[in-house]
């Protein structure tokens, strides 16, 4: 019991925060919003996976990756490839010159399914691929960089170049990837229509529960000895190294974990939104994910979920009503967060949240005192006969 309470929920404050977030996501939002808006929230929550992964990697590990969109995209594309193959069975693609292959391949004069698409006919393989492809990719990048003690700014720039490479590759290789349009027209998962209303509700809750599992897992990692080492490495890397720890292995590990977490978000994105395209892979989405984490508070697993929801909600509202203002606001928000609130929303809450509660209690107290005073005055008035 103590294990669950301290290690997974994060003590009293963590448990309260988790309960409030769970109530919001699992109860309040589904009751208040119509399906269209709820589906949007579900989409935002898939970004929250990437934001949570950045808490591990950036907040605690001090490693800023500008390539989380790569892993988000890899997860999303793996899922999309499976769904696309299911949607393009020979029956529904019989008007194509080569039936049975995805429509964009047919448009690009491919006559045969490429070899790397073949395994995605199996759902088991796809689930494994969603988790393993990003992990292996992250391992290769992490191994070659952290073993050579490349970190900080260089790491950020190189991950950004990798994000650019992947985008250019996907856009350029239309026949294999669907190009700039991405992989669209996804219909069913094992014959279960993911476009139906009931499916959208179910996917929303599956997504939310996965997100909470990921947060619990991350909390477990961060409260372990590994989490403390991570924090120590962020502050004094050399000292940890001199104490006999192999710093690079820890960094590679946390990079791989964060890649897997982002990839789960990507796969859920594909399922809920019904397509995947390069615009969710490249440099801009990757930096936006960092924005979500920064606004929510890079050290807070729960804060980043609020950060993601808030920024995306703002983006939707503002781009609907004042599209011109939105970029100014986003830019100003970003500068303000970096300069004045480095710990984001969570930092503001830690600093002023307690006072707010105190304030409410003071209000009550003041009210009680005032009513007592009023009574006294009444009594006095009666006595003096006014």
């Amino acid at each position: 019991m103590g294990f669950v309470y301290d290690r997974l929920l994060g003590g009293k404050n963590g448990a309260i925060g988790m309960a409030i977030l769970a109530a919001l996501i699992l109860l309040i939002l589904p009751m208040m919003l119509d399906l269209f808006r709820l589906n949007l929230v579900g989409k935002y929550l898939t970004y929250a996976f990437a934001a949570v992964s950045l808490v591990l990697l950036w907040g605690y590990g001090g490693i800023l990756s500008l390539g989380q969109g790569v892993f988000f995209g890899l997860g999303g594309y793996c899922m999309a490839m499976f769904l696309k193959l299911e949607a393009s069975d020979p029956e529904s693609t019989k008007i194509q010159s080569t039936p049975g292959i995805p429509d964009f391949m047919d448009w690009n004069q491919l006559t045969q399914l490429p070899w790397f698409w073949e395994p995605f006919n199996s759902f088991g393989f796809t689930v494994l691929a969603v988790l393993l492809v990003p992990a292996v990719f992250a391992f290769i990048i992490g191994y070659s960089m952290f073993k050579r003690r490349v970190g900080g700014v260089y790491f950020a720039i190189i991950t950004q170049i990798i994000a650019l490479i992947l985008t250019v590759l996907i856009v350029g290789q239309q026949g294999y990837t669907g190009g700039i349009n991405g992989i669209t027209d996804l219909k069913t998962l094992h014959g279960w229509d993911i476009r139906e209303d009931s499916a959208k509700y179910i996917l929303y809750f599956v997504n939310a529960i996965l997100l909470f599992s990921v947060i619990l897992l991350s909390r477990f990692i961060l409260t372990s000895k590994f989490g403390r080492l991570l924090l120590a490495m962020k502050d004094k890397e050399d000292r940890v190294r001199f104490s006999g720890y192999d710093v690079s292995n820890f960094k590679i590990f946390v990079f791989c974990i964060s890649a897997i977490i982002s990839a789960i978000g990507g796969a859920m994105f594909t399922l809920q939104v019904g397509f995947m395209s390069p615009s969710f892979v490249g440099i801009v989405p990757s930096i936006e994910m960092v924005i979500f984490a920064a606004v929510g508070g890079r050290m807070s697993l729960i804060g980043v979920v609020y950060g993601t929801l808030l920024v995306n909600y703002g983006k939707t509202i503002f781009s609907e009503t004042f599209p011109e203002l939105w970029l100014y606001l986003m830019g100003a928000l970003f500068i303000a967060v970096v300069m004045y609130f480095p710990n984001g929303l969570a930092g503001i809450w830690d600093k002023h949240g307690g006072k707010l509660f105190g304030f409410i209690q003071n209000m009550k107290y003041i009210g009680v005192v005032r009513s007592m005073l009023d009574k006294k005055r009444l009594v006095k008035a009666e006595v003096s006969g006014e």
Partner: protein
Amino acid sequence: MGEYTAQELLSIFAMQGFSGLSLFSVLLLMALGLAIIFGQMGVINMAHGEFMAVGAYTTYLISVLSEEYFPGFVEYYFIFAIALSFLVAGALGYLAELALIRHLYKRPLDTLLATWGLSLIMQQGFRSIFGAREVSPTLPDWLMGSYQPIESIDIPINGMFVLGLTTFVTLAVFYLMFKSSWGLRVRATTQNRVMSGAVGINTKKVDRLTFALGCGIAGIAGAAFTTIASTGPTTGSLYIVDTFMVVVFGGAASLYGTIASAFSIAQAQSILEFFISGSMAKVFTLLAIVIFLMLRPEGLFASKVRK
């Protein structure tokens, strides 16, 4: 390559090589500014592309104004526009340093985020002022046309002009950094900030002017850019990653490295572009650079700066 004759192959290499040189010029102009800001000061300026766009829009504005009010001036406005681009972008950079960057020197990763915010604001600013459509200035006649040394080779004059401009700016930067007393102060501050302060260098002023100079050079890059392509609100962001790559590949603190890396990246890309599709040429170039950087993180020319 059997289908090409030797003469054709020579022409292809000459022309692709020259288009590589044009790309090299713009990349180098962009990268010089960034090499000063990132290499010397350690600030990751994600808004660098937008400072380039400031230069490009300034050139466009001067072109429109001179066409409107001083038609006789159209032939010569371009020289004037280059100088003004430098001043406008430099002044904006000075303000940005004053308001934003100087608070973040101790947190390099946060400068990345803050300048990204700045770049969003600037992009929207361009969109509000100049509209979302791409614009290009009217080029004076002497920049048009091309030079034909032999029949099958066609070398555009604007490309040669940009190349000349780049050479001039590069020489000027080298003179400033390595021969002037100001450059000495910049290099001293880079190597040991505390000691530089102790011997009486006003390091804050040095920082501010260095940043402004870097942004000003980006402005010149923007002016040069208008002769090659048209400018839109997001033009700057298209080049920012390439520019960072040039600086990192060359070795962050080395200006020679920046030149060498801009040259090799531009040439590799434009020669590959002829034989395989443009996007694959880009992928191969980028991939080669990432692999190179993984093997040799310090870049082409490592400088001996103590950490």
